[in-house]
């Protein structure tokens, strides 16, 4: 196989953020551009985490139904969350935070779960989230956790910023832009295969991590409880990392019987386990 690019033209950077390992790869991308990307991701982490009381998301959740001035990035992510809700028929709902807390996921996962409580009803996202330019409002006691959608969205945004031939992997949710070193695609592990991804996103949803005795972090909005799906891990390809993340979560919640039919018309590939 002929290489269109010299191996040394590829820059890479690995770092920890968003609760996991992040990797950036770029062909003909300056190392300082990757470093700037890392800084941006860490800044967004600080802004979006629900585990820091002074983060932008925590202050939005604590705003008590009053209009809250949001940054352009958070506004865009909240609008994307509404799109995810519509796209998924309500199965991807960032307003699951009260249910996550009731399930015992009240603090950083490393600190361990806390006692469980009665699961609350999870309202449809459009009922509790109102957005206007520069402003968001959570009503009816709604609270959001963006952990289920932010990584894919950030991977898409950072890939756009970095260049035409880059791969951004944020804790397993990734976007491969351009053809990689060979021009045919970036070699990415997917299930038990390696696929060549070109202008495609990939994401994995599962219940095998961030799990504890009697629970895990993947809440089914239909019940307010941790999912009881017969699938434990779903990886999905889509035209963006955001959509891949949405599709993976929907497929996992639907289970092995209905997931393939749902994915058939939407996804470029999937792995169910």
């Amino acid at each position, binding site marked *: 196989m002929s290489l269109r690019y010299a191996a040394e033209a590829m820059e890479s950077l690995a770092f920890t953020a968003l609760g996991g390992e992040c990797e950036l790869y770029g062909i003909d991308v300056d190392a300082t551009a990757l470093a700037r990307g890392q800084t941006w991701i860490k800044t967004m982490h600080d802004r979006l985490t629900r585990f820091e009381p002074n983060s932008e998301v925590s202050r939005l959740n604590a705003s008590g139904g009053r209009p809250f001035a949001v940054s352009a990035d958070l506004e865009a992510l909240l609008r994307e969350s509404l799109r995810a809700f519509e796209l998924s028929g309500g199965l991807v709902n960032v307003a699951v935070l009260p249910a996550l807390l009731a399930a015992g996921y009240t603090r950083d996962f490393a600190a361990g779960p806390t006692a469980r409580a009665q699961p609350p009803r999870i309202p449809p996202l459009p009922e509790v989230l109102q957005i206007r330019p520069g402003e968001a409002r959570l009503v009816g006691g709604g609270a959001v956790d963006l952990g289920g959608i932010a990584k894919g969205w950030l991977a898409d945004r950072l890939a756009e910023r970095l260049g035409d031939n880059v791969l951004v992997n944020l804790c397993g949710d990734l976007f491969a832009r351009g053809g990689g070193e060979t021009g045919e695609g970036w*070699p990415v592990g997917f299930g038990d295969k390696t696929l*060549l991804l070109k202008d495609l996103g990939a994401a994995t949803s599962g219940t*095998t991590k961030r799990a504890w005795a009697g629970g895990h972090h993947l809440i089914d909005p239909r019940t307010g409880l941790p999912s009881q799906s017969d699938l434990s891990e779903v990886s999905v390809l889509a035209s963006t990392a955001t959509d891949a993340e949405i599709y993976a979560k929907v497929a996992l919640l639907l289970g092995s019987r209905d997931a393939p039919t749902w994915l058939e018309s939407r996804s470029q590939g999937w792995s*169910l*386990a």
Partner: protein
Amino acid sequence: MDRASLLRASAALFAAAAFVGSGGYVVAHPKNDAGPLQPPAGSEVALRMSAPSATPAPTRTGRPTPAPRITAAPGVKTTALPNITFTHVS
């Protein structure tokens, strides 16, 4: 020959015979690196006995973890190249 001398001669003769006999045995049985192991550790039975038993991976639910079922659109190629990264649960 008195009794004591007879005993000494017999002992010397016995020691010489043992020396010559053991030397002959060693010369007649050179080490064979290709020879079978004793006991037959490489035999099928021994291999079957020493093979590790299948231990199911620990899962939260206790259900066995099946191999992933992968479906990919025709435009998505697989490769024998090593991956540089992978998608996974976070």
